[in-house]
């Protein structure tokens, strides 16, 4: 076998893993706090991308400006989703599956009607760099830098700020944290906002590399789902490890088996892991 293939797999595994990390972080944090998977998380990804696209095409804004607006918009949209459909249903967790799923369908259908099914794309960050002789678009480096930054910021936020600590407290126990004077609903709001920003940023950064369609949100959602389950709910380091396991496995399998079946091989692994270790790699037994 050609040695170049190994290099290729290695390099792209790292890049792909970093995108999974970026997207899963927000999902993981929210999941940890509310103990509820936000199924509308994938729609924030397409939402921010379509906002950037519209701002650039119809208002002629610079990509960076449009991206910043879109990411903030995604944060606010996430906050709105949390307030409008998650909070009222908190008493009946099963209902949250339905309400967030309904939101996801509303987004998908809205963009289907307004934007059509034709895939759109955004401009790439220009230039190509050679890594170990493999040509890599500079956009991938932008993604890598952004994702490391987002990871460090989240870790620092959760560890060293009062708000971040209260998020962890609420994730630990909703009741206990209330006794300590933390308002869990306020914390939930923060978690929704931050996770929206993470989803939005992922959308803005990844759409140039992939085509965007109204259904593009589901793939990342299931990936995030799988990664969070694998890493352990609410564990940031677990998410980091799981993202890389997922990314490496997917890239390697794509090379060995080619296309199709490779994309689900990580899922099969995750199902096996969950069966034998239900709490995930870094999760704890409750």
């Amino acid at each position, binding site marked *: 076998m050609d040695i170049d293939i190994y290099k290729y797999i290695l390099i792209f595994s790292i890049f792909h893993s970093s995108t999974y990390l970026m997207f899963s972080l927000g999902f993981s944090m929210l*999941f940890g706090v509310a*103990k*509820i*998977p936000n199924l509308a998380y994938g729609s924030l990804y397409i939402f921010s991308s379509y906002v950037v696209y519209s701002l650039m095409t119809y208002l002629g804004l610079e990509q960076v400006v449009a991206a910043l607006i879109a990411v903030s918009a995604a944060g606010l949209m996430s906050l709105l989703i949390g307030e*409008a*459909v998650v909070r*009222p*249903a908190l*008493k*009946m967790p*099963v*209902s949250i*599956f*339905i*309400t967030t*799923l*309904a*939101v996801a*369908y*509303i987004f998908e*259908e*809205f963009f289907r*009607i307004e934007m059509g099914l034709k895939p759109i794309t955004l401009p790439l960050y220009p230039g190509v760099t050679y890594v170990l002789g493999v040509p890599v678009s500079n956009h991938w480096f932008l993604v890598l830098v952004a994702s490391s930054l987002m990871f460090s910021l989240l870790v620092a936020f959760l560890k060293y700020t009062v708000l971040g600590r209260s998020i962890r407290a609420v994730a630990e126990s909703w009741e206990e944290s209330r006794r300590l004077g933390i308002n869990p609903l306020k914390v939930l709001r923060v978690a929704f906002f931050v996770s929206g920003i993470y989803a939005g940023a992922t959308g803005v950064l990844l759409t140039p590399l992939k085509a965007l369609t109204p259904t593009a949100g589901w793939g990342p959602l*299931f990936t995030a*789902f*799988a990664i969070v*389950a694998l890493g352990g*709910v609410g564990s940031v380091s677990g998410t980091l490890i799981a993202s890389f396991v997922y990314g490496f496995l997917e890239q390697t399998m794509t090379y060995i*088996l*080619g*296309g*199709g*079946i490779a*994309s*689900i091989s990580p*899922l*099969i692994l*995750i*199902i096996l892991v*969950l*069966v034998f270790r*239900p*709490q995930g790699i870094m999760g704890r037994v409750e």
Partner: protein
Amino acid sequence: MVFAKRSTKDLIIGKTPFFAVLAGLTLLPLLGVGGYWLDVLTKVNLFLLVTLAIDLYSGTTYYLNLGVSFTFGFAGYALALLNIYYGIPIEYSIFLAVPISVFFSLVILLPSLRIRGVYFAILSLLIPIVFIGIVTAQPFSLYLGGEGGLRYKQLFLDFARSLPPGIRLTFLQYSYYYISLVAAVIGYLIAYKIGFSEFGFMLRAVGQDEELAESVGINTLKVKVIGYLISSMYVSVAGALYASMRSPVTVDLVVPANTLVPPLTSAIVGGLGTIIGPAIANYMLLLTYESLWGLIGRWRVIVYMLLLITIVVIKPQGLVFRIYLDLKKRLRGVLLE
């Protein structure tokens, strides 16, 4: 379990809504409902079985099984494969596909039955996704039809061909409708019996507090497995019948949006664990959804979803069952006066 004996009058009033709806559904084709709406009703009848399955298992034990669409689609695929590779006519392969699908659902989900809460939900949601991946991926798609699906002669097609051309389609539609109606009625009656039997209360006990249930002598694992078996049997019957009535079986059957979300919605809006509520909600919601198509065209998904969110946000515990009880009380008041 012993309940207070009810008076005959009470009993008659209690059963009135059921027989009214049954009579209505039986007579609909004779009243001129046909074509598109009869097809829709056939589908809704079969979806009732899925709704009841979700309600019987997830609605009582709170183990949210999102893998229902896997069982549904698997039954369809089993039916198609039996027909194509073993030459078993569809009429008979329905009876074989159901046990095969139940068996596989059990084998695949059995290890995860010890996982609780959100993890169980996640795991069960991943299973249909993996199944879709397998069906559409290279080496398997050659045998499983890939995106295009598997084609076969649907139920009664051979017989219908011997009929004069004018009534072929009508015959198929009518026979499918009545098959689905019979399945729905039998399914409903059994679900009602199970839901409020001793076993039904054991399921509820598991849902309330598993350790407590164990401590009062309920074998929770056994209850969960049997509950899951019954539930997947319902879904398999629905899936096999559904697939037998429309020829190419494709991954659409497994996509959660198509075969999980509508019944799950009905179960929640109807009121989890109440059997009657979800059954009513099943007809109301699915028929509303279909009629929105004529009213607002492509905006129907958005409007329907907004409606759904509103209902769930206002009454997360379910709406239909309460309204039903309320109406029944009033009806009783009027009739007993």
